[in-house]
């Protein structure tokens, strides 16, 4: 009896805490949604009301019809998806190398990765532009993918290393003693165990590329190669901050990310497939 009461209290506490966090995470997004649905003339008059007396879909209509947002979304999807794939592949290899081998120069490589994150991006945008321009990689989605990949690989590699570090070495050694090559051991024993790590890395990089503004703005000036954060900025400069349209575009931009998280989240918590580490 006592144990059951205890259990349901802890379950209740669990839900209460989750609810509290959800409120904190979602309220600002709710406010963004509210602003995007408020007609312009009520924006300030009913500014602090939780829900406007009248709502409108005009902002959404003008974002979809009169602007280049569909194009920006397509660009963002291409850039974020390619970056995430590339980074995850490179980082898995590097993270595995860091985790399973001792080799000359390892400390320097890890150091290089850390130092590359320590300088403000505003100071390296100009040199990167000068580097990419003769290669024809400015005003191109490929150029953005290359830069985002370079910028995200250090963190992703070190993160993947930490996931590999947590997997006992004996597992793959046992498989290799049983005659598997390192690659086979990696694929059949290690890969299932790192699936949550891979999913986390992939989503992290995808989202980082999805919302990056500075490089997207500085390296690409043509609308044909602009990503959606650059498009959002257009609402600031062109019409002296059109909050209605900007928040509408912001809400729309969250939809593909929702879809993406929906696809990826089951890998994130799938965890151990039954019995993978038994023995």
């Amino acid at each position, binding site marked *: 009896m006592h144990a059951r009461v205890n259990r349901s209290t802890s379950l209740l506490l669990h*839900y209460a805490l989750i609810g509290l966090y959800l409120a904190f995470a979602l309220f600002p997004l709710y406010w963004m949604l509210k602003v995007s649905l408020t007609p312009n003339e009520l924006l300030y008059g009913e500014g602090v009301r939780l829900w406007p007396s009248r709502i409108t879909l005009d902002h959404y209509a003008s974002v979809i019809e009169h602007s280049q947002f569909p194009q920006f979304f397509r660009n963002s999807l291409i850039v974020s998806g390619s970056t995430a794939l590339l980074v995850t592949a490179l980082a898995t290899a590097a993270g595995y190398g860091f985790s399973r081998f001792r080799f000359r120069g390892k400390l320097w490589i890890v150091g290089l990765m850390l130092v590359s994150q320590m300088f403000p991006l505003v100071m390296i945008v100009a040199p990167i532009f000068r580097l990419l321009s003769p290669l024809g990689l400015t005003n191109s989605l490929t150029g953005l993918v290359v830069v985002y990949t370079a910028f995200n690989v250090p963190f992703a590699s*070190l993160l993947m290393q930490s996931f590999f570090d947590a997997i006992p070495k004996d597992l793959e050694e046992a498989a290799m003693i049983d005659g598997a090559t390192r690659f086979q051991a990696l694929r059949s024993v290690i890969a299932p165990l790192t699936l949550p790590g891979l999913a986390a890395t992939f989503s992290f990089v995808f989202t980082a590329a999805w919302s990056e503004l500075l490089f997207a703005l500085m390296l690409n000036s043509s609308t044909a190669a602009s990503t959606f954060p650059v498009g959002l900025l257009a609402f600031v400069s062109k019409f002296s901050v059109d909050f209605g349209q900007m928040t509408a575009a912001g809400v729309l931009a969250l939809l593909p990310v929702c879809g993406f998280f929906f696809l990826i989240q089951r890998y994130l918590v799938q965890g151990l497939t039954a019995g993978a580490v038994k023995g």
Partner: protein
Amino acid sequence: MSERAEPYLYTLPSVFLIAALMLVPLLIGLSYAFRDISLLDPSSGGFVGLDHFRELYADPSFWNALRNTVTWTAASVALQFGLGLILALLLNHPFRGRGLVQLLVFLPWAVPSFLSALNWAWLFNPVVGPLPHWFVSVGLMSAPDNLLSDPKHAIWGPIAANVWWGIPFFAITLLAALQSIPRDLYEAAAIDGAGAWMRFRSITLPYLAPTMAITILLRTVWVANFADLIVVMTKGGPADSTQILSSYIFTQAFQRLDFGYASAIAAVLLILLLAYAAMLVLLRHFLSTRN
């Protein structure tokens, strides 16, 4: 394939990419610190030695920004990490609706930083945002004022936005690490009679330690370099009370167009972050040899 070449095969593609696209531009950017690079002055570009650093030493705005950087970084990272860890632990237990909750709590992270900043600036604005009115009703404020225009407390505005934006990062990485802990360990410990706290200390923490160390280290570096929220929400004001080194760099580079001075500040920030990283690595080494 020889055993000795193998690790290089895995790591060199990344190293090459980083060296070409990050290290070379970084060194070029760093070289500005010793030159007189001002876009407003066409005759600039000459070598000035340590002049920028001397100027920096005598610049009270720099010291003020340095102090604010410590507050901003320490408060943001500590809150993001603490709340992110709690969230990860909550999500690690299966419950009804977990998939949906997971999806929703990660959303703040996908909002571009300047849109988050504008949105939070709205929330703090008494004309269009509810927060000041709530602060009054719980007694935190005597009248619904804008937190962002109060020099004493304004820095907590961008910190709140940063915490909101950054929790999912820790939650997602720590959740992935939690998910990789073999379940059998907990079962065995439970059979041995270990309580919840004991299991957390002896299984969860050691398994999470590598991920915690690397995420805290890198997050600190990023947050210290992260100017977007402050530049958009307060522009460093009122009266420089929210100016941090990275927003000061941004101001020097893009408003005064003085890239030389901006780079000198960036160089100091780089050295401080290097010292911090070295300290953390040594600490980790010390802890791992002690055990």
